[in-house]
């Protein structure tokens, strides 16, 4: 059994996770990255994607919407706008959000709204992906 380290995942509205775990795999803006105990201290932004948490031989997944990770000697903290377990995802809401975002993108106006719609689309797809694989 691999040794454990402390991981906290914090969102504006709750503390999503606060446990000792073995490994976490994150999607950063530069690609996927795994963190285990005694990782070098670092800070990096995350992109919208999923999170894999290994603990006692089992793997859990969660959807997170951006944010950043701060790895320190004592603990690792992930601060994100939102985080959800697969069974917490509201599939209908995500579907609606996806449709809305696609509609907005199809209109094709080049401004800040397009950017926002792209982000919304990514978030929705990410949620749906994870929820459907359950």
């Amino acid at each position, binding site marked *: 059994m691999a040794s454990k380290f402390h991981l*906290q995942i*914090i*969102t*504006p*509205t*709750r*503390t999503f996770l606060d446990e000792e775990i073995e490994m976490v795999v994150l999607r*950063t*803006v*530069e690609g996927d990255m795994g963190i285990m105990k005694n990782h*070098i*201290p*670092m*800070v*990096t*932004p995350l992109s919208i994607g999923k999170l894999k948490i290994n603990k006692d031989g089992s793997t859990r997944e969660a959807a997170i919407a951006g*944010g*950043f990770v*701060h790895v*320190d*000697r004592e603990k690792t*903290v992930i*601060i994100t*706008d939102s985080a959800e377990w697969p069974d917490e995802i509201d599939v209908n809401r995500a579907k609606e959000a996806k449709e809305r975002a696609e509609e907005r993108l199809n209109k094709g106006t080049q401004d800040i709204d397009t950017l926002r719609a792209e982000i919304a689309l990514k978030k929705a797809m990410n949620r749906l992906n994870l929820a459907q694989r359950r």
Partner: protein
Amino acid sequence: MGLGMRDIKRRIKSVNSTKQITKAMELVSSAKLRKAKEELEKTKPYFNAMEDTIRGIFANTKGIKHEFLTQRDVKKTAYIVITADRGLCGGYNSNVIKLANSHMAEKQNKSIIAVGARGRDFFKKRDFDFDGEYTQLSETPSFSTAQQISRLALELYKQGLVDEVNLVYTQFISTINQKPTVKRILPLEISAEEGSKGSKTMIAYEPSPEAVLDYLVPKYVDGMVFGALVESATSEQAARRVAMESATDNAEEMIGNLKLVYNRARQASITQEIAEIVGGAEALK
């Protein structure tokens, strides 16, 4: 004592119905206060973790240049003023507005981003410049509205339309103590002393410290605005509860006094009636 018995009775009735309303509002706001306090507790870890990380970065990296951190000559200052949408909450709204006003007195050019109808109306009436207004959110602030507000502030700052952004909100100290506060959010001020308390470890920043700050600073501002919204919402409920409690107490006292006057008037009229009867009987003899 000039009032007739019927008038006094009517007064008592009217004061009593007011009392019922204030009592009901008191109960409603205590329930809301409890909820708001829970909400406040939940947002604290996010805010603290965010602050820790930012402090850490400042402690570990020297001489970073970033547009959100460097001071500029202040030509125009934006104020985000957070008030309630409704009144009847004691000095809550006026305290915030008063503080904002006195702070603004020293600035030449200023504009307002109003959160809450009370503050908006006040500054609208006095012809202040507006950069934005948000209402109907003060009771249940959501992170996405906080984001909208902070994005607006960041955008104004980036484009050089304002050179400083201040946040005026009410700090929640306890149920009976709330303090209006001004906080500068842009450019960011983070004191080095506080930041250097941690161990000076080498931290890797991917892809670069600047890129991390680029991402982090707007998030930090989001978080600050959200924190202020939640704290103000909690303060509002607390202020309303206290105000309604004392209104109920006052109404009770008033009813007590009026009852006394009423009973006196009643007694006087009975005495008079008896005197009249006795007088009449006397005359018949």
